[in-house]
């Protein structure tokens, strides 16, 4: 076998607790998926669900095709198209030739390798991280991967779910396994009750502001505490979704009654006796009393305010009533540089308040905040208001199912009457690959997850916030503390 030299200097990652010791949910899911563990090698980890989208898969399919391999488990592989697809009239041909080619390629690959595809005409297509849970594909205790960093979303169900690169997509296609080193564990304990106007999005933005974009590197977060238990499944998905923005491989929440109520009856969820047995099994996943984590972080939910980012990474966030930090007050010279660079890009002054800042675009969408509850919350606040004349507002549901449900409830009418654009589902302006994008210099308040330079269009400038804060900005035309509108 592989002969690894003894002098190798390597940080030994924490050894797995033995089966009898108290274990975290992360240990339990990990342990039950290790196929082989050779000494000094990464584990061969079995993958229960492999999600595929058009952007990170073509080179992987090409790889297995060149080797003459098949997809080992097409029954555990599910594809959809979300990143580069248009969100305007889906019956029109796709104008962008490269996007059209990428979509055609996925159709071809899915057909050739027998992979289930929720394609352009499917009533069940949508953003990959929205449809997995929605269809009941995402289940507790599973290992789930996708060539997409926001695969962490599925951790809300007690699955170990993480993003992988295209080479790894190829590995999973061919073997249904991945070579992985066991991640470290980090408990993120969030207790306390949220105040009105403060949402799951504000929890995660506050956590990121606290730990920074590298604070979770090498770890999987397990979110625990009363604030997490009180959240709905869709809110939990918002939190797990952005674990990657803290550098964590994944975020996970032990399943409970909220989880089971969400899942029961969904298309791919277990049925009948199988359901009962599954629930029993899922209940045993919770972290054992006395299990140890490599690290822990805590956050008091009752102290939180609505959050907004001011900079060019998701860790650069502040409570909406706070002022933009001053680089001169930052001790560390590289952090000072990063802050100066961010403020320059964003066109903001140190010490400035963001409240009252005029904006150009509001985007409600993305795998962070495009599910039915997000749209309901946004519509409820929006009712009776108009989008401010200086603002373009896009509402992009996370999936076609979400779109239909929202329309059945009349939410689309509220948005449209207010002057917002109501679109077909997709990633849209979260990643700006499909023409839904900011122009250089424009300011957006966005419910998505990344405010990196140019993420929503070259030269565009993003303030990340919750759907409530996004609506408040849309109707007032400026950055606004949503709590002022809720009091009215």
């Amino acid at each position: 076998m592989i002969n690894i030299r003894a002098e190798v200097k390597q940080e030994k990652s924490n050894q797995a607790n033995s089966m009898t010791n108290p274990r975290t949910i992360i240990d339990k899911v990990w342990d039950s998926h290790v196929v082989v563990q050779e000494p000094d090698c990464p584990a061969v980890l079995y993958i229960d669900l492999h999600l595929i989208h058009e952007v990170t898969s073509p080179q992987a399919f090409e790889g297995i095709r060149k080797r003459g391999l098949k997809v080992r488990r097409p029954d555990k592989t599910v594809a959809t198209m979300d990143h580069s697809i248009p969100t305007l009239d889906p019956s029109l041909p796709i104008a962008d030739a490269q996007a059209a080619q990428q979509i055609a390629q996925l159709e071809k690959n899915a057909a050739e390798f027998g992979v289930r595809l929720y394609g352009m005409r499917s009533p069940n297509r949508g953003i990959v991280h929205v449809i997995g849970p929605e269809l009941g594909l995402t289940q507790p205790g599973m290992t789930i991967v996708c060539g997409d960093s926001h695969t962490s979303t599925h951790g809300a169900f007690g699955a170990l779910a993480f993003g992988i690169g295209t080479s790894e997509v190829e590995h999973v296609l061919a073997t249904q396994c991945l070579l992985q080193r066991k991640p470290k564990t980090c408990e993120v304990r969030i207790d306390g009750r949220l105040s009105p106007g403060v949402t799951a999005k504000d929890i995660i933005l506050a956590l990121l502001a606290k730990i920074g974009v590298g604070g979770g590197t090498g770890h999987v977060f397990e979110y625990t505490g009363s604030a997490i238990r009180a959240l709905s499944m869709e809110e939990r998905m918002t939190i797990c979704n952005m674990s990657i923005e803290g550098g964590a491989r994944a975020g996970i929440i032990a399943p409970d009654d909220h989880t089971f109520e969400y899942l029961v009856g969904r298309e791919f969820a277990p049925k009948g006796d199988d359901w009962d047995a599954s629930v029993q099994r899922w209940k045993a996943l919770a972290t054992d009393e006395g299990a140890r984590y490599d690290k822990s972080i805590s956050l008091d939910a009752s102290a939180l305010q609505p959050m907004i980012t001011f900079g060019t990474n998701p860790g650069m966030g502040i409570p909406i009533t706070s002022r933009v930090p001053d680089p001169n007050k930052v001790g560390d010279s590289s952090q000072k540089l990063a802050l100066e660079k961010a403020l320059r890009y964003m066109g903001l002054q140190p010490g400035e308040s963001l409240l009252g800042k005029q904006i150009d675009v509001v985007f409600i969408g993305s795998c962070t905040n495009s599910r039915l509850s997000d749209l309901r919350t946004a519509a409820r606040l929006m009712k009776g208001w108009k989008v401010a004349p200086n603002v373009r507002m896009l509402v992009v549901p996370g999936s076609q199912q979400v779109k239909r449900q929202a329309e059945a409830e009349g939410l689309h009418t509220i948005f449209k009457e207010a002057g917002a654009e109501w679109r077909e589902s997709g990633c849209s302006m979260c990643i700006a690959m499909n023409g839904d994008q900011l122009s250089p210099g424009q300011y957006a308040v966005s419910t998505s997850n990344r405010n990196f330079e140019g993420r929503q269009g070259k030269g565009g400038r993003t303030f990340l916030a919750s759907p409530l804060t996004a609506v408040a900005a849309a109707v007032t035309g400026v950055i606004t503390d949503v709590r002022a509108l809720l009091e009215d």
Partner: protein
Amino acid sequence: MSHFYKFTSRLAPLLVNDIDTDQIIPARFLKATDKSGMGDHLFADWRYQSDGRPNPTFSLNQEAYRGAEILLAGDNFGCGSSREHAAWALKAYGFRAIISTSFADIFKNNALKNGLLPIQVSAHVYRFLNEAVERNPRFEVHIDLDEQRISFGEGSSEIFPIDPFSKYCLLHGVDELGYLMKFQEQIENFEATH
């Protein structure tokens, strides 16, 4: 994959923390269905002006750093999206290694799978290298993967971490999928009871 032992190179400095993969290769270049041409789009929004001409203030466009095979970059390099296109673009541009004080997990995995070596150095060495390239853009470092050593200046060096498996694969040109494929039987047995 090209085998990878020892080499000496100048450094191209990009001294920004938290460089995300959207900067390394912006999303609009991800519509390709193959891996070719990615090098031209590396750091596109920093590297080119809006008229498409090279931005003269960007370090990779400066004569002094042409041909450098090592990128020296700030902490938490490669955060954000899982796009392997970032590693392909760096490799296609001509980089063989990135030196930083830390790397985002998915990027590190992607880099190692493409023969691009992520070299994690201490904050002290990072500062030293920073100052050294600033004083002398022709400053060189020597990389020895087998010894896991980065050497520079007058006899200074540091050992860098790399997991033994990745090191073995890089040194011996082992194909990870080939390694995985050897476990067919174990995978079948696992599936039978899982």
